[in-house]
């Protein structure tokens, strides 16, 4: 690990000044940055530790009903906050489906927003990576790309964003609050990470050097979906693994008709993939299998595999979207499932005992 300065500013203003240093990196929970430093992927000259900055660790409900989540709020605290659980249960479910309890205690909301891709070639300094060194090439091409993008990728980069939290946040129209020395600005979560472009441009977070994420704001509008929203996450291991594909679905259903819908997919692109076409396709429809299938197809209409080994993710994502919509339509569970976002979470009222409880039934 390279030598670096360590500063712990007392105020946001001081932090912004310190973070403006050319080689500065901002440290909050450290669950991602420290790993990247140990791997030699990040080699900051200065660590600006904002983990004890005042005023960034609160969750508050604003006058207009929006929920403002401070950037230093821990993931675990976010998932158990009553206002978040009430207004945006899929956010809580997504958080609890990610990482481990220990990591969730430490990791911050702002850090989750800035979490680096888990593409193995990004994490390996010996490999060429446009995302790590713009213009250096992409060694993932020709290598293992099973987990890579099927939407919004380019020749420069096909890595995916690993976050669970961002998927429901993007679906629900959350906004990132950013502070800089020149003032503050806002960017929708769904657009916070730019997509890869041409000529070695891998895209990345829309955060200029020296800026600090101060909060994420869930609009008041999110609460209209509270009764029918779910997050579904698919991966080989039942827990403690990044999503191969995930989906957050939220429905506002009245009198058997979908008044409004929100759908975003995870694990398929360089950012949480808000599926506006699917949302439009669902509006005004009955919440049934045909509508969900059509919506999922709309969401994946532009999908194409970035490599042969991830072609299966297109069909998988379509099915995961259908599942998330189906489960959302059944209603948000009264209690968080013991296996949040898992397809093995019971969806029936009576939990299945572990002893054989089924009846042999011919298909």
């Amino acid at each position, binding site marked *: 690990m390279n030598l670096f300065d360590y500063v712990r500013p007392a105020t946001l203003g001081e932090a912004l000044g310190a973070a403006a240093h050319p080689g500065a990196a901002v440290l909050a929970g450290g669950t991602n940055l420290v790993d990247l430093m140990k791997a030699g992927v990040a080699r900051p000259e200065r660590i600006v530790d904002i983990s004890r900055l005042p005023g960034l660790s609160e969750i508050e409900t604003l006058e207009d009903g929006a929920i403002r989540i401070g950037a230093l709020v821990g993931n675990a605290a976010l998932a158990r906050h009553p206002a978040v659980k009430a207004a945006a249960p899929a956010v809580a479910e997504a958080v609890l489906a990610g990482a481990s309890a220990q990591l969730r205690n430490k990791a911050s909301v702002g850090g989750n927003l800035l979490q680096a891709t888990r593409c*193995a070639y990004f994490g390996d300094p010996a490999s060429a990576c446009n995302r790590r060194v713009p213009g250096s090439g992409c060694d993932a091409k020709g290598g293992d790309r099973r987990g890579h993008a099927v939407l919004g990728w380019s020749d420069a980069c096909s890595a995916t964003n690993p976050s669970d939290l961002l998927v429901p946040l993007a679906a629900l129209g959350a906004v990132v609050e950013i502070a800089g020395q020149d003032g503050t600005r806002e960017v929708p979560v769904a657009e916070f990470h730019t997509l890869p472009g041409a000529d070695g441009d891998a895209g990345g977070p829309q955060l200029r050097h020296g800026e600090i994420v101060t909060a994420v704001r869930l609009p008041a509008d999110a609460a209209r979906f509270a009764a029918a929203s779910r997050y579904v996450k698919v991966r080989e291991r039942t*827990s403690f693994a990044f999503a191969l594909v995930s989906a957050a679905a939220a429905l506002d259903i009245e009198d058997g008709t979908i008044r409004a819908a929100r759908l975003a997919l995870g694990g398929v692109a360089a950012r949480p993939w808000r599926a506006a076409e699917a949302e439009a396709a669902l509006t005004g429809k009955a919440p049934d299998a045909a509508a969900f299938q059509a919506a999922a197809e709309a969401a994946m209409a532009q999908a194409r595999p970035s490599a042969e080994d991830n072609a*299966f993710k297109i069909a998988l994502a379509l099915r995961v979207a259908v599942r998330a919509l189906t489960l959302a339509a059944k209603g948000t569970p009264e209690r968080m499932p013991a296996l949040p976002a898992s*397809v093995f979470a019971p969806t029936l009222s009576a939990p299945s005992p572990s002893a054989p409880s089924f009846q042999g039934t011919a298909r």
Partner: protein
Amino acid sequence: MTDMIEPVSPDTLANGSAHVRLGSNAGQPLTRADGRLKVTGRATFAADNRPDGMLYAVYVSATIARGRVTHLDVDAAKAHPGVVEVMTPANRPPLARDPDAKPHPFALKVDALQNDRVRYAGQPIALVIAETLEAAAEGAVLLAPAYAAEPARMDEATGEIFATEIAGFGNPALFEKGDVEAGLAAAARRVEARYTTPAQYHNAMEPHAIVAAWEGDRLILDMPTQAPALSTAEFASFFGIPPQNVLVRSPFIGGGFGSKAFATGPYLLAMLAARMVGRPVKMVHRRDQQFGPVGHRGATRQTLRLGAAADGRLTALDHTALSTTSSFDDFLEPAANASHNMYASPAMRMAHQGLRNDVGTPGAMRAPGEATGSAALECAMDEAAEACGMDPLAFRLANYAETDPQTGRPFSSKALRECYTAAAERFGWSGRPLAPRQMRDDEGRLVGWGMGSALFPCPMFEAEARATIHADGTGTVEISASEMGQGALTALAQIAADGLGIDGDRLDFRSGDSSLPNGGIAGGSGHTATAGSAIFTAGADAVRRLAEIAVADEASPLFGASNSGVEARGGRLHRVDDPSRSETYAAILSRAGLSSVTGEGKGARDPAAAESRAMFSHGAVFAEVTVDPDLAQIRVTRLVGAFAAGRIVNPRLATSQLTGGMIWGIGFALHEETVYDPRTGRPMNADFAGYHVPVNADVPSVEALLVEETDRHVNALGIKGVGEIGITGTVGAIANALWHATGVRVRDFPVKMETLLG
């Protein structure tokens, strides 16, 4: 399942002394002796040591798999604050032995900077020694190696396939019995299938770690090893010093699984580094450094051909394996040998070939050969059962081996039938529909049931122990055994207390240090049997000496009894013919004016028994998997295993070992896989975010039952072994349950969801 354990054995042991019996302490389900130390952080692992003046070493891992190192920026590394020294092939001190030599067939070549060649990714190519870990790590980065790289050979197309006479550690690569082709031709049903298993890396919780220090010509090593005393000779040979000049301290090992049994290149470099700088040096592997120079389970491609008569009895069993090894050494995963001893067949052929790839040399990894081979064999048996229209358990019973299929010898003991019965009953196997896709849970998910047979040999190695009875009646037993999480400290101490005829709380059990009598190796599931035999014999020897004193002492109530006329228990010697006449150890020693008596013992297989009997632990594993029919998510919702492994010294710890093995089987079936970049040969998932093993959510219900088994041949104590057998059987059971759930035969491990997505 302690109720299934044999109660205190009435057997008098036929090992030279009739004074002591196993059973007062052994057989009890004690919690682990080191548990409190571990949960409070007071158990000292190698990396916890910090001798005065210690420096830190970090070795540089090659990022190519084949080629040469053309440049290392030594000046830049040395200029970094805190860096003390840089070791490269140019200045590496000489070794007394060529690391590429194989002085004995089991020796593996190691990479210790003997030249600038790179032969696998992760090979050490330089080492930086510094005042702090951070400085050493940064020095390693600053070396910025440049390479002349050649294309990595990472598959069958680019690697060389070669014939071999040896598989594993010295096992014949070919076994033939009867006429396989004729057996297949005569079969009413035939199955041929090809299975693949990937490269897997041991990844113990504790990475390889060492603190090396020289005191003149004496080498002091704090390191985790599965063979503390045994390894001294090997280490000494590299430095031209006598083995007694090497002291290895290894009180606790954070998991070994076969990776901590041998000298490795990085370990040698740390020893060299300490000599180079004249100060103690600590080196701890990063997690990614576990992928390369410390062995792994080599990838296999296996083909099974089974023929069966109309009644389901095998007419031929053909199992061939292509095992991947390195470009420069020869260890081959002996996968096909897993078919030697399981099922009766008039015609058998088990054969191996090697495949050379640019990977580190594989080695023994928990159930080497048995894990990979059993996975393929049990899947093929399931396919054959289906072809015969038979229940998988009935099919296995139809092919039950009454004698060892390989040698024709009787088994020393074999309670496999009882294992099938116990596990099937507990699991609720009866009523299982034969056809796949017949069962759903109440959420509509597909449910399938599968099973597999488990088998593992019961080797014994060689061990020595020393036992002492002190003037106060307490005992000390000394042996350089290995506590690697399996519970050896606890189980061996139970045997030791019985050997001395004292209560466990009167025993001081000393272990994990090479200056103690050689406890052999904790491997091959033979540690408890081997070290336990040495310990028990040593205790019995001490008691015999004490009895000699007592029966010759006119003042003793035991006076005049023949030596075999007394027995020991609870720290007293009793007359057999009149148990009311007894005396404490302390009183006997006190009157004799002795401060102690010491006995010695050895543990090894009786060669005559080895020649006349086939010795294996057996088991049966039943799996239930649940599969989401649309999303292909798999969960092993239940595992039930039943195992017969001779005498169980500590049922609690044995169950833990078996359960751990079964969980490993889940990982083998569904998770564990090394993903190499096909061009560079670098493992691209060399961390726990990418290299997955099961987590708690993957193992909702795992149960291991202990089936009573008395074995009078395997050794005097009747102990077999439980360390590895849990993996065998489990992998196949899960794959077979997956077929039963989905109708899809999975033949490539780990199972990926795209295989089932359709």
